[in-house]
Structure formats: structure tokens, C-alpha cells
């Protein structure tokens, strides 16, 4: 046994801890380079939040591009937005909110040693994630059928501008809207697919009994990612689906 006094870089107090170099190798809740479990959890969560910060900037560039074009071509954006099925988008918002609830319930179940509930909530989260992607697929299918996908076959002729009878949207400006729509929702869907991969892995770990009330950091970190993807959608929904919806 070797006694080391270490100043923990992530907590407010100095801590004296007893550590031995090798006998904690199989304790995932306290790896030997951390002072205490709280410090280990804080480090993991801090790392995830920094990653989410880079993700905010990543999506931020697209939101910025959207904002500029929306101000320039507001009427065309409104006409293009009206062609998207807002009810499907709204349903998807509700589906994602439900999946966020099942994530926090899974973490709560891990904290209180409810294995069956944790597994059920993880499966339910993945189910909601797949529902979201399915509904998204229906939406994309509609857009392909209507020739609203930017490219050689794009067509947006004689589409009324909402609130301005007899005026038609400029197809080139509408194409910019649809390009942003597909890039932003597509990137979001890609994040959902990555999230489904993460949750499959979490489910396997949970099934093997790796998560205990003391150690379930991967669940918390995976949850942070899932909630972040939910937040992105919370902004995408009103911005893309609900421009000038009123008759």
C-alpha cells in the first residue's frame, strides 16, 4: 500500500486517498488515475460536454447559413416550408421527447438497481429512435416524389407565396431552402444513427451486468449525447417546418 496525497484538478478540495497501483484494475468505478469516483464521473461528463460544445459550433454554422438565407428570401422560404408535412415533423418532435424521457428513466433504473426496467427503457429508447428515422424516411420519400430534392430534377414551379395571392416563389431560392432542409435534417438523422449504435452498445453492456448503482457512467454520457440530438431537433422543427404556416 502506497499513500499518495493528490490535489484533484476537478474538485474544489484537496483529497488524500489511499491507492495501490494494481489492485483496482478491475474496478471501473474508480480507475487508478482518479482520486475518487466523483472526480472520475465529473471528468467523463466534462469531456462529453466539451464534445457537445464542438457539436454546437458544427450545427451553428448551418443555423447561421439558414438564418441569412431566410432573411434574404423569406417569402420563398415560407412557400417551401409550407410544402413539408408539419404534422409528421411535430410527431417526430414528440417521439424524440419521449425517447429523452426513457433515457433518463434508464439512468434512474441503473442508479436504483432495477435491471429489467433499465433494459426495457434502453430498448424503448432505440424503438423511439427507429420510429423517428422511419417517419423521417416517409418525409424524404414525399420530397423525392414531389421533385423537391435539390439537383437536376428539382422543380418548384407555380408555388404560391403564403399570404400573397398571385405571387409565386422563386424556384432557385426555394432550392436553397430544400438544400438546407436536407443537409440539416440529414446531419441530424446521421447523429440519430450514431446514437442508435451507442445505445445498442449500452444495451449489450447493461445486459452483461456491467452497470451498477456505483458505476453507470457510459449510460450518463450516452444519455448526454442523446439529449443533445433532441435539443438540435427542438430547434430544427420550428425553423424548418413552421415558417408562415397560417392560412
Amino acid at each position, binding site marked *: 500500500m502506497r499513500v499518495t496525497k493528490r490535489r484533484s484538478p476537478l474538485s474544489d478540495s484537496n483529497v488524500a486517498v489511499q491507492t495501490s497501483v494494481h489492485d483496482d484494475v478491475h474496478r471501473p468505478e474508480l480507475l487508478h488515475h482518479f482520486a475518487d469516483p466523483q472526480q472520475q464521473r465529473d471528468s467523463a461528463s466534462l469531456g462529453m460536454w466539451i464534445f457537445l460544445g464542438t457539436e454546437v459550433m458544427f450545427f451553428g454554422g448551418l443555423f447561421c447559413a439558414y438564418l441569412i438565407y431566410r432573411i434574404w428570401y423569406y417569402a420563398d422560404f415560407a412557400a417551401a416550408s409550407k410544402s413539408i408535412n408539419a404534422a409528421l415533423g411535430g410527431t417526430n418532435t414528440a417521439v424524440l421527447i419521449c425517447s429523452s424521457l426513457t433515457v433518463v428513466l434508464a439512468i*434512474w433504473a441503473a442508479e436504483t438497481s432495477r435491471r429489467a426496467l433499465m433494459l426495457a427503457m434502453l430498448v424503448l429508447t432505440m424503438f423511439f429512435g427507429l420510429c423517428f428515422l422511419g417517419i423521417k424516411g416517409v418525409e424524404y420519400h414525399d420530397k423525392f416524389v414531389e421533385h423537391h430534392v435539390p439537383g437536376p430534377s428539382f422543380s418548384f414551379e407555380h408555388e404560391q407565396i403564403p399570404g400573397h395571392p398571385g405571387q409565386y416563389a422563386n424556384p432557385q431560392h426555394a432550392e436553397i431552402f430544400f438544400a438546407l432542409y436536407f443537409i440539416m435534417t440529414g446531419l441530424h438523422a446521421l447523429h440519430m444513427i450514431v446514437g442508435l449504435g451507442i445505445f445498442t452498445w449500452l444495451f449489450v453492456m447493461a445486459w452483461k451486468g456491467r452497470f451498477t448503482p456505483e458505476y453507470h457512467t457510459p449510460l450518463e454520457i450516452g444519455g448526454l449525447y442523446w439529449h443533445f440530438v433532441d435539443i438540435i431537433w427542438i430547434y430544427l*422543427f*420550428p425553423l424548418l417546418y*413552421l415558417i408562415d404556416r397560417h392560412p
Partner: protein
Amino acid sequence: MSVHATSSPLRTYFAVWVTLLIGTLLTYEVAKIDLGVFNSAVALTIACIKALLVALFFMHLRHASEKLLKVVVISTLFFLFILLALSMADYATRGTGASTVSFLITHITAILRA
């Protein structure tokens, strides 16, 4: 951990969940009413409240004791603000996009198209 201590987060989670669903329905319904320029303002306000609820309660920011974590979150928002504010300042003061007020843009595009 006592039973009482573990039952309270559940109530919070379900309350937040219901609030988020109501917020979604509200955004959807309000979008159908003509509020002029305030439609966007209302939609974004509701979206920000929903995002805040998710971050505070589902992502447990409310109970975050770590000061470093708060620095990361606040600086993220600050840099996003710089990205949007400086870009908009640029575009708003350019010749062609001199006016960013949406109703003016509508009139200009209408004149160009006529």
C-alpha cells in the same frame, strides 16, 4: 439511497416530459395564427424554453457542481452568439442586404419580380 429520495426525480422527469409535449403542441398551434413578425419570436422562445428544460433536468445541468462544466457550457453559448451575431452584423450592413427587416425584403423581392 432512501425510497423517498429516489421518488422525487421521477416526478420531475415526468413533469418535464409533459411540459415538453405541451410546448411542442403549442408551437405547432401558434404557427397557424398570424402574428406577423412575432411568429418567429414565439417559436424561438418556446424552442429555447424546451432546450433549457432538457439541459437543466434531463442533462442534469441544474445539479452540476463542477465549476469547469459551467465554464464549458457558458463559453459554448458565448461562441455560438459570436458566430451568429458577427455574421449577421456583416450581412446586415452589406449593400444588397442593407435591410434585414423581413417585411421590407418581401416588398423588394415583390418589386424585382414585377
